[in-house]
């Protein structure tokens, strides 16, 4: 049997890592919903959720239980298969990004050298881009299958917004890739580790553009036009109930975590702790410190996302499109030209 000519230990190692990362992402997303409510409460000068458990810490569990226990309703006029496929796709697409993120350097367990990354593909950045462009299908299919005019309008808005901002995102990325010369996220992080400057120093404008487009791709306020309640009742998930609605809401938070991880890896050194010599401690401990550093960076980015959400009001739709096409894309092109000129001059 040549089928068994597989490295089963490698397969097991990857499966365990996938399980850990997916479960950790879900757990963090659960508590991100709690953090969102707490941050909103602090910014609006009120206590926020405080009843369930100490400091309201059990609130996300109560919310999750509520979502699961609610009745599942599939509208009569809805397209049943696509109605179920929508939230499943949204969730899958948002979780798939974690495959190429380097969560830390390598550790040694039981004599095995384990890289803390599921797949170091040499096109990692493009893979992220492909997954992001898949994410819009979850919203479009769900919105269309609901057979509701508001949902459809919202799905179309989401699609046009995603396509418009993907362009600026890609152009901002090209400038970064010109400086790194590699599409592998592992290589990009390793270039920044160990006393080297982080990429934010070389690409401040590129990071700003990437951050804004990432916010738009995650459908976060001020870019949450697809779920503008005052125009569209509720948005593309209007007909959804119970855990299908939960999946849509959850996918947004997981998207936020993943885009924070991507931004931290590409522009802020990934698992690199500044002013710390990784060689001075054992490799395993250094790797764990690296994972902790990346998590702290992710949390800071998530806080930034929330801070912006509860500070800036929503755009109008024409303002959103104007910002994307008339401001961000020319700026990204300008950034690309300047980067190219500087690289040429310093060669």
């Amino acid at each position: 049997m040549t089928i068994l000519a597989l490295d089963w230990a490698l397969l097991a190692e990857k499966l365990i890592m996938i399980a850990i990362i997916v479960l950790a992402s879900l757990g963090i997303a659960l508590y991100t919903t709690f953090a969102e409510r707490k941050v909103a409460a602090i910014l609006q000068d009120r206590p926020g959720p405080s009843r369930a458990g100490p400091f309201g810490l059990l609130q996300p569990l109560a919310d999750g239980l509520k979502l699961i226990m609610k009745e599942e309703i599939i509208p009569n006029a809805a397209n049943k298969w696509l109605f179920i496929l929508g939230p499943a796709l949204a969730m899958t697409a948002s979780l798939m990004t974690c495959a190429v993120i380097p969560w830390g350097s390598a550790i040694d367990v039981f004599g095995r050298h384990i890289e803390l990354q599921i797949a170091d593909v040499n096109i990692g950045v493009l893979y992220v881009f492909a997954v992001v462009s898949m994410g819009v299908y979850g919203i479009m299919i769900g919105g269309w299958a609901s057979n509701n005019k508001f949902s459809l309008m919202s799905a179309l808005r989401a699609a046009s917004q995603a396509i418009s901002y993907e362009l600026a995102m890609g152009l901002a990325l090209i400038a970064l890739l010109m400086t790194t010369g590699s599409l592998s996220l592992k290589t990009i992080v390793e270039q920044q580790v160990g006393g080297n400057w982080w990429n934010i120093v070389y690409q401040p404008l590129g990071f700003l553009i990437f951050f804004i487009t990432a916010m738009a791709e995650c459908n976060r306020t001020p870019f949450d036009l697809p779920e503008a309640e005052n125009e569209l009742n509720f948005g593309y998930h209007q007909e959804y109930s119970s855990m299908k609605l939960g999946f849509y809401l959850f996918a947004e938070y997981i998207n936020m975590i993943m885009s924070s991880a991507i931004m931290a890896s590409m522009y802020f050194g990934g698992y690199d702790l500044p002013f710390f010599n990784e060689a001075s401690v054992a490799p395993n401990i250094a790797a764990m410190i690296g994972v902790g550093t990346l998590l702290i960076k992710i949390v800071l980015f998530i806080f930034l996302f929330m801070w912006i959400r509860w500070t800036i009001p929503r755009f109008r739709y024409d303002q959103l499109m104007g910002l994307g096409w008339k401001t961000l894309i020319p700026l990204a092109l300008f950034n690309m030209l300047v980067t190219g000129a500087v690289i040429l001059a310093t060669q």
Partner: protein
Amino acid sequence: MSILEILFFALSAFAIVSAIMVLVSKNPIHSVLWLILVFFAISGHYILLNAQFLAIVNIIVYAGAIMVLFLFVIMLMNVQSDKEPQKKLLTKFIGVLSGGSLLILLIALVKQTTQLQGKQVLMKEGTIGLIHPLGKALFNDYVLPFEISSVLFLSAMVGAVIIGKK
């Protein structure tokens, strides 16, 4: 059978079944969704050929951008199979005939190409689908065609802007 062969046949079957479903689906939205699956299967084949860059670009451009626009248009037009006028029998017959002739032509072409005869596909080898060799080939050996195709895109863009302004 090696794992590569199993993957190849599974992906091929997946691609062919999805392609047939594109044709037989009554609902145009379902057709588009099956077409996206076809693109995924083709990307899988690219990965088997060690052309990771082509695989991911195929997903970004075709499955990610063009198909979204297809969905967009079909959703906006609200095409429904039962409300659409049925084609005449003669039109259907001519369609089948011309499509079948094209298929026979393509099969004959592939069978007669001497470069393909007696050759086997190199799986997991070859570097032309990776990003560095592809970039070098495009910007050294094929600079002129590459730049001319960018002019084609520019003219398409100008045309789209002019039509959009009307």
